[in-house]
């Protein structure tokens, strides 16, 4: 595939690894904050090639994992309404709420449908005028333009039976929170290339300046990731803290202006709870009051639901680098290494769960 295969070459990868080895003289803790990058690193085993002095930490970069328990429970409550067709991106099906998940709700007869595009959810609403269609609009900034467009389209088509359950999260406030937390060990960031495709990288300049931490916008193919790490290492070794762009074939400083315009029109910033972490100020987007007619939280008045985080949840400590994925208690005790029940996590095979499955010692 064009623009994909060329960035996977073995010669490129080995060359970049050698350059990283030549450059690195100290121990560095760096973080990537994108589920897609975690997956790419684990799938190619890049972490096995990097020198040991680079400690690569995986940040809260999967919108599926960080969707708050309250929001997941709200989704389940809405999906349980008879007469509702609940549409969602595939990843969300397996995410456990306090009591159940969308899979078990589907098994008990609820109409729950996977869509690939937010516009497909709008189509479902057009094709089922006698039902209420709710779309679970989750995602980072990458998905916000798509989710926003579904609202505008529904408005244009005067659909009365379409609404959005919104759980949008933003990366820069999360980076701020991580860097600002006591005990933070992260010294450099690989910024998520597709988030920056939409938003540009201008938002990261004040962060790099404030915390004196280098940030490199990085892509997803093996050579892209290693180029990002190379640039980060070069900066760290010479104590610079600039924002660099290693994914320039799709990322520019300003990002996609039409997309940002639509986001601005449809969404407004809000405080957002991140599952397992807590409330990060201004880290989310919600529908503007003008679009409350399409807000499922308004339409269904899902009041404060009694949430109950399962006690067998995997304890992270990953951000602190105090535990590595294979220290995860799931792999000890009653779950044998050959049968990691549930360790495949929420996304498709080896996606966000990548480091739990791929990272097991052989």
């Amino acid at each position, binding site marked *: 595939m064009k623009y994909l295969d060329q960035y996977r070459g073995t010669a490129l990868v080995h060359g970049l690894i050698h350059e990283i080895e030549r450059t690195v003289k100290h121990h560095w803790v760096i973080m990537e904050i994108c589920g897609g990058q975690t997956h790419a690193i684990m799938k190619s085993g890049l972490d096995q090639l990097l020198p040991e002095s680079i400690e690569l930490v995986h940040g809260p970069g999967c919108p599926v994992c960080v969707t708050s328990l309250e929001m997941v429970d709200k989704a389940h409550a809405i999906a349980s309404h008879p007469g509702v067709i609940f549409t969602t991106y595939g990843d969300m099906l397996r995410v456990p709420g306090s009591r159940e998940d969308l899979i078990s709700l589907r098994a008990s007869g609820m109409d729950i449908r996977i869509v690939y595009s937010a516009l497909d959810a709008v189509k479902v609403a057009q094709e089922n005028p006698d039902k209420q269609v709710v779309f679970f609009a989750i995602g980072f900034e990458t998905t916000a*333009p798509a989710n926003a*467009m579904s609202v505008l389209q529904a408005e244009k088509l005067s659909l009365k039976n379409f609404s959005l359950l919104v759980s949008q999260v933003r990366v820069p406030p999360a980076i701020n929170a991580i860097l600002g937390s006591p005990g933070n060990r992260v010294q450099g960031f690989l910024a998520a290339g597709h988030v920056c*495709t939409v938003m540009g990288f201008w938002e990261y300049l004040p962060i790099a300046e404030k915390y004196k931490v280098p940030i490199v916008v990085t892509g997803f193919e093996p050579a892209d990731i290693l180029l990002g790490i190379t640039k980060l290492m070069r900066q760290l070794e010479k104590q610079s803290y600039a924002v660099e762009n290693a994914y320039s074939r799709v990322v520019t400083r300003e990002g996609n202006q039409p997309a940002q315009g*639509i986001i601005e029109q449809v969404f407004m910033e809000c405080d957002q709870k991140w599952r397992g972490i807590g409330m990060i100020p201004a880290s989310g987007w919600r529908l503007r009051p003008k679009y409350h007619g399409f807000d499922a939280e308004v339409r269904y008045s899902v009041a404060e639901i009694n949430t109950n985080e399962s006690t067998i949840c995997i304890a992270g400590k990953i951000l602190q680098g105090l535990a590595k994925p294979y220290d995860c208690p799931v792999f000890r005790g009653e779950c044998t290494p050959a049968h990691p029940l549930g360790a495949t996590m929420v996304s498709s095979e080896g996606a966000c769960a990548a480091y739990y499955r791929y990272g097991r010692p052989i």
Partner: protein
Amino acid sequence: MCLAIPGKIIELYETNGLWMGKVDFGGVTREACMSYVPEAKTGDYAIVHAGFALNLIDEGEALETLKLMSQIDMKDIPE
């Protein structure tokens, strides 16, 4: 958040007031919304996420990046 792949725009058209296009990912084609890349022409490559083209791929930058990566690669590698 990040599963987006490059594809070639092979058709552009309007549906229900939205600017849409057909994208070829190399043996698989799918419709994608082109509203965020109004400057797109057929033959251009775009990065597509969840049925939306998020940006066009800059061929010049793509080649520059490859060049940068392989220049690093071409340095003497001690055996």
